């Protein structure tokens, strides 16, 4: 499994060891940037988010602890939070959305992280494709678009009280398929 020494590198980063920080940076830069781009569809925001996420790791503003789960999951949660916040802020300021399809690339450098990521991506996409369209949509609106419960209710024409149950059901269904297909959903 990738990143077995993530936690050690993290603590060394917090103590301002540049070499450890660089190792963590190289390991996760592309994933953080690509995930932020997936959420915001905007390269400028994805760049800002990536810089912010890593700098806050260095200066200790975002603090990880082992009871928060795996380091990689925590880092991606921090990335999602910042991406959602920045996207909302940019919309309030009527930012020009930058559709930048040219930037989608074939794999170039293959690191341990990208190799595992490629494998997981295929698995997740296959699993998502097996879900009913409504379930696919609710996951997109909830997780990738970060919509509020009421907005999801309105969009999907569902009673507000049922939204959470629907999201949970879709995610559990997805988790089940991933588990069956690859058995790597957790590790």
């Amino acid at each position, binding site marked *: 499994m990738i990143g077995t020494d993530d936690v*050690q590198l993290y*603590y*060394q980063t*917090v*103590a*301002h*060891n*540049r070499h450890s*920080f660089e190792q963590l*940076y190289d390991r996760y*830069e*592309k*994933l953080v*940037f*690509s*995930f932020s781009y*997936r959420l915001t569809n905007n*390269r400028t925001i994805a*760049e800002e988010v*990536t*810089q912010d996420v890593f*700098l806050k790791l*260095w*200066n*200790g*503003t975002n*603090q990880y602890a082992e009871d928060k*789960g*795996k380091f990689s*999951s925590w880092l*991606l*949660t921090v*990335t*999602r939070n910042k991406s*959602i916040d920045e996207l909302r802020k940019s919309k309030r300021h009527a930012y020009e959305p930058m559709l930048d399809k040219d*930037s*989608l*690339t074939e794999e*170039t450098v293959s690191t341990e992280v*990208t190799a595992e*990521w*490629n494998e*997981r*991506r295929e698995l*997740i996409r296959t699993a*998502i494709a097996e879900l009913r369209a409504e379930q696919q949509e609710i*996951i997109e609106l*909830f*997780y990738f678009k*970060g919509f*509020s*419960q009421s907005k999801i209710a309105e969009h999907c024409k569902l009673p507000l009280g049922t*939204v959470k149950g629907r999201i*949970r059901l879709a*995610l559990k269904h*997805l*988790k089940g398929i*991933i588990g069956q297909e690859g058995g790597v*959903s*957790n590790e």
Partner: protein
Amino acid sequence: MNKSCHMLIDYFNRTLTDVEMRQFEDHLIECPSCQEELMEWEMLTEDLPYESEAVEVPTDLKARVFASLPDESSKNENVMQIPVKEKSRRPLGVATSILAAGLFASLVANAFLFTEMQKEPDIAQSEIQLIGQSILAPEEGTSASAVAMLIADGDQEVLLLDATDLPTLSADELYQVWVIEGDQPYPAGIVQPNETGTGTVSHPLADLSGTWDTVAITIEKEPNLPAPEGQIILAGGI
């Protein structure tokens, strides 16, 4: 089930207002069922980031990130070289393997070992444990930062503090470290920053191993006053 529990999804998706966000965070501390549910949502969504298509990263992004880090190369060199010049190498070798095995910050730990080795070369062979650590948050208007670690060496506890970017003081001022237990502060060493604003201090906590939970740095006119009188520069829980 409290009425706040219904806000969990909107908390997860950050669609709450700042006030609601803080209210929910207060609620979350007291609500085991929301804590559990939040973990469930995190678990259910942990695969999804990997669905993202790999996108080409701007080639200069890494350079920009590293350019915005404060330059600490001079500090690293000083601290790393000190132990080699001093005493025998044997305890240091053992110390190094302890460090590699643990989660100590090499920089800070070397400074600690150096201080301790001047008094007692064999100290590095005793059992050193990291009990807690904390990043001290700067007060408004300063860019200073510091890492505080609480280390147990046998039955002795030591507070180790490594600060950077401390503003330059006037001749009659000093940086006082405090540990605070409830409302009661105790002085816990003086940081003497070098010309780049960097300084490390290790302070034995022989008389201070109570239930204190906060570390702070203030600017004072006199060392080891009964209570801080000057401006707080950095503070954090440990």
